[in-house]
């Protein structure tokens, strides 16, 4: 059905369900465009699990280092960028040293892309690479890599992402294995990766995890929240907006939230219309029968 003007169905209910997708897409685009051009400043509510994630980050032990594992790639950048940026800015603002590594081959470049943006913000001023944060790059093997990192970080990585031997980075002298780690930030595009993180980081090494999930992963993460390993959950772009609000590090997530709210209201309205069409058409057919 390529003609947007064509409407399927005979009755009003059938025609309601036969509206061309083009008009729905156009309506969505307009609803997104309005707040992008003129931000509406719609209110943002915070969820308990994002508040817990924020508290876990800012209250991470000062004598230990935060480990940040990233398992998402190019396809998830639109969903990941906002919260990734917010978390980095909050870490910088609260002087929490952290070490990032990647479990997806295309993730290190994206970490670097976001880091370059974050370094232009006020929170990052005065922060020194190697002292306040380290980017280690890619490690293969998924869940087995967690064990490798937890048992001996200096054996798992000999150099950082830029090829610098990690022995030359001051922050790396403070962390050798899981005893030196205070919090794990596990960000992933997969729905179920949190199970691997809990199995290894929490069950084996008793380290608390902040689950930073991009898709429907929050529903799996919540099975381990708040006292089975996951101490807080950041849910994609929405979680990013909440973090920006909580940490007062306003950025792209806040500006995207208005667009998201309006687009979801539109989607909900379309679902309601679709159901009215379905049940209306069915009732009529049953009546005819």
């Amino acid at each position, binding site marked *: 059905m390529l003609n947007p003007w064509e409407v399927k169905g005979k009755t009003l209910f059938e025609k309601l369900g036969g509206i061309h997708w083009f008009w729905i897409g156009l309506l969505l*685009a307009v609803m997104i465009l309005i707040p992008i051009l003129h931000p509406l400043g719609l209110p943002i509510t915070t969820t308990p699990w994002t508040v817990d994630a924020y508290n876990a980050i800012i209250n991470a032990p000062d004598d230990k280092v935060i480990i940040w594992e990233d398992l998402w790639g190019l396809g998830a950048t639109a969903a990941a960028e906002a919260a990734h940026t917010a978390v980095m800015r909050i870490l910088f603002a609260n002087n929490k040293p952290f070490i990032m590594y990647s479990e997806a081959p295309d993730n290190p470049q994206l970490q670097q892309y976001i880091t370059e943006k974050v370094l232009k913000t006020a929170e990052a001023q005065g922060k020194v690479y190697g002292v306040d944060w380290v980017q280690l790059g890619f490690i293969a093997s998924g869940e087995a890599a967690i064990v490798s990192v937890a048992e001996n970080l200096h054996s798992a990585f000999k150099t950082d992402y830029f090829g610098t031997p990690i022995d030359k980075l001051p922050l790396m002298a403070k962390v050798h294995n899981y005893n030196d780690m205070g919090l794990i930030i596990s960000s992933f595009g997969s729905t179920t990766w949190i199970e691997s993180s809990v199995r290894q980081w929490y069950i084996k090494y008793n380290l608390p995890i902040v689950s930073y999930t991009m898709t*429907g992963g929050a529903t799996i993460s919540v099975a*381990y929240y708040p006292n089975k390993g996951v101490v807080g959950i950041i849910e994609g*772009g929405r979680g990013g907006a909440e973090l920006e609000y909580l940490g007062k590090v306003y950025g792209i997530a806040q500006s995207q939230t208005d667009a998201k709210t309006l687009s979801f209201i539109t989607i909900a309205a379309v679902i309601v219309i679709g159901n009215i069409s379905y049940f209306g058409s069915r009732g009529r057919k049953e009546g005819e029968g």
Partner: protein
Amino acid sequence: MADIYTYLQPWITVLIWSTIVSWVYKDNRIFRVATVAMVAGGSANGILVNLDSYWNKGLLPIVNGTKPLMIVPVIISFMLFAVFFTRYSWLARIPTLTMMGISMGVMLSSVIGAQVLGQIDSTMTAITKGTGNVFGIINAILILIGVVCSILFFTYSKEHKGIYGTLTKYGRYFLLASLGPTWAGEVSYHMDFFIQYIQNIVNALRLFLPI
């Protein structure tokens, strides 16, 4: 003074995104070129990153003598290429099984604690531990009922009818209710792309128009 890249980059971004979005209209050559380019780029990057990782973590320690025993996993990994030779293809099973063994071993050592005992413990003790208020207790009871009914739904040795059938029916409802938020998260994830796409177009237009 902004350079030409400042003006071109947003439009290149919009152009590339549009080639992908063009599929929404219908399948077309531009879309196919874009998807092939995307897969090719991803594969090339993946190969290079993995080769780099293989060199740094596998071969370099052998070459510089810091970990000579790394020769063992390196030899095992090379056996994967035996799959291309019919006579020796059986050798490829060794690295495959080695990787499976490591993954299973790492996982199984803690899966019972995390996903069996931990979950049962949370479900059963939530009522007694609660959250100190009546809503916490009601929530815990609902979770317990939901878990029991959902587990019953997955039984196949008894026909789902009568009281038992009612319980499995409620189990199905609980499962569907839990899939709702998962699907909503998926929609939210994809809406991020659409919002980013519109944002890119606006950013590109703002270079020339006062919007």
